């Protein structure tokens, strides 16, 4: 299910609109992940406050979204472009890759909420495909 030229164009166009509110999107998506899938909290035991929109959550949500936007720049070769990030996640963070799917789902929910008119079914399928490819590239160095 690789990205067609049309998928890439749709993703670039849509995330161009999202970029301004990247931190809000990241905050919302990460907060939801922690609330709706409590097992994900196990990765953040070093934070004092895991509540919705807390300072560490907002900051980290912003960081993750920054990564997503950066990946769009590298959309033509995600595996190569995300090599360093993949090594980070594989060897240092050791986040179970199943969680990438979970985070992606919550990003889609957030995008639907915050951009109801832009998040059409066509944008949805292109974004879903892109996020799946992103997760795959991020898992590249795991084994």
């Amino acid at each position, binding site marked *: 299910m690789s990205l067609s030229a049309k998928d890439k164009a749709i993703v670039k166009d849509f995330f161009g609109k999202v970029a301004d509110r990247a931190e809000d999107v990241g905050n919302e998506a990460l*907060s*939801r992940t922690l*609330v*709706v899938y409590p097992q994900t909290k196990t990765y953040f035991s070093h934070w004092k406050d895991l509540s*919705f929109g807390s300072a560490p959550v907002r900051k980290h949500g912003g960081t993750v979204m920054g990564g997503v936007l950066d990946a769009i720049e590298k959309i033509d070769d995600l595996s190569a472009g995300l090599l360093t990030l993949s090594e980070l996640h594989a060897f240092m963070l050791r986040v179970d890759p199943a969680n990438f799917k979970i985070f992606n*789902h919550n990003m*889609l*929910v*957030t995008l*639907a*909420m*915050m951009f*109801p008119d832009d*998040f059409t*079914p*066509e944008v*949805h*399928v292109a974004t*879903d495909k892109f996020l799946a490819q992103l997760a795959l590239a991020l898992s590249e160095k795991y084994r």
Partner: protein
Amino acid sequence: MVEWTDEERAAISDIFSKLDYDDIGPKSLSRCLIVYPWTQRYFGGFGNLYNAEAIMNNPLIAKHGTTVLHGLDRALKNMDDIKNTYAELSVLHSEKLHVDPDNFKLLSDCLTIVIAGKMGNAFTPEYQASFQKFLSVVVSALGRQYH
């Protein structure tokens, strides 16, 4: 048996009370057919599914979307025994319709996303958690009679 807190019951009732079945049903089903095109395999007799526009304007798909959502109503009204409420529907989907149960999760995800789009900030994380729990119970009940 599934345990529901008062907050979960309230959240789920609230979400359903705000739903326009004739709007959300068609939107969710057509989104599912567009985002996960392999699900179209079950709709061979439904006419033109050639592209996203055709799917979104297809009256048979719209009608079926509404039907599916009304099916969820049954679970809403029998939250303490969804398993048995759905026994017949499970047999139907397995024996007659031959639907891969994986598809139930795909439609659930699309329904969640459409409702999030409709409700905006009112679809709080707690609401999302309650609603996804409800849908996962429904999905489990629908898959139960497969063998």
